[in-house]
């Protein structure tokens, strides 16, 4: 290794291992919010959540549409599992020893990308097919988009030389 190649790695490595990656902390916090949004919708799907408090839009129209389920599985359950996975991954990724993990970075980026694409599809359905908006779905779409932007910070880490 040359001097030029060592110092940047040294600097990056020192900073990354001593302080938890901010983007993963942001992802964890957003994913936790997402968990409760999805949990609320899932509880409603099970009939446990009572009437959906829907200040804006028509949650009932969206939740009772055929698009509220993928086969027998409510979309909210898929969202719940996705957010839990993102929370667990990001939480692992801020623990000492895993802060530079490219595997976690890759999974976070892939998960956030998949979630954003799925959420974009659901938003399209609300706008163009169901013609009704569910505020919780919109909140979830915003959350997963923010998570994706936060996950983009994994790209330099993935391009780094160290595992």
């Amino acid at each position: 290794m040359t001097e030029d190649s060592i110092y940047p790695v040294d600097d990056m490595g020192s900073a990354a291992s001593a302080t938890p990656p901010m983007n993963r902390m942001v992802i964890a916090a957003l994913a936790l919010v997402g968990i409760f949004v999805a949990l609320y919708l899932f509880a409603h799907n099970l009939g446990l959540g009572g009437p959906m408090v829907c200040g804006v839009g028509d949650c009932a129209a969206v939740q009772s549409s055929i698009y509220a389920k993928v086969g027998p599985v409510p979309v909210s359950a898929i969202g719940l599992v996705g957010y839990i996975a993102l929370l667990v991954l990001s939480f692992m990724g801020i623990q000492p020893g895993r802060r530079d993990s490219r595997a976690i970075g890759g999974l976070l980026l892939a998960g956030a990308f998949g979630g954003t694409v799925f959420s974009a599809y659901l938003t399209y359905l609300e706008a163009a097919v169901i013609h009704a908006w569910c505020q919780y779905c919109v909140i979830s779409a915003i959350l997963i988009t923010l998570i994706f932007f936060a996950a983009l910070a994994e790209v330099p880490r993935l391009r780094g030389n160290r595992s």
Partner: protein
Amino acid sequence: MTAAFFGAACTNTIGAPLAAHRGVNVSRAEDRKKAREGGSDMTKFYLILGVIAVVGIGAVGYSVGSNTFGTAASEPVEVPGLDDQATLVAMAQGVKKGDEDAPFTIIEFGDYQCPGCGEFGLSVEPQIDLLLVQTGRAQFIYYDFPLTQVHPHAFLAARATRCAQDGDKYWEYHTMLFRNQSSWSVQQSAIGAFVGYAEDVGLEGDAFESCLKSDEHADVVSANMRLGYELAVPSTPTIMVQGFGQLRRLRNNSYQGIEEAMAAIEAAAAAGN
């Protein structure tokens, strides 16, 4: 540790021991500083996660808990004395709309969870209301006949309408249940949805919920069911037209069918006279 390792590697590579020694010290000091900052960041992070968790658990827990607990009568109850015809007629109470002196009475035995009743309630009932009830030609009476074996929320829905009747919002609530039938029918518990609809029609939510989460009106709904069985009601909706001492059961549950039944009754009455 990682930083120290790279610091040492750096010393060997560039071959400047003193500078490197100073560099290692500086690097270790920076590491300690960063570690302290990292620890501080983690503390803030856990604090934020804790706040989110507390708020989230509180909000979802309140929403679920407040709508789950409570014992709402959702099955027919044993009402003593219904074997006696007079008691049954006294106990079974349909909900009436229109002039009691109208020449015809249109009777429906309905189930709020039955799709056919929903269709009748939303398409034919408005016509009955507009063309027969409001013009004084007929009175409309709705009797509960929840098919509890196939419609798990039907009995509760019938009780819910009676709770709404306590607040003088029976017909508004009746229509609301039919309008949202596809939504509440598929839920595991419909209590929360029913309370929400009550608030939507202008009822006081707590009073309604307290009524719903009890056995209030279970006796009337059960008596109505028994009356339906006594009248051999075969299915829901069963529509009957009564007038001039005659009672006809509709085969075609449409507004036209009702008009035809009324015309037939009038013709029979005229022929009898």
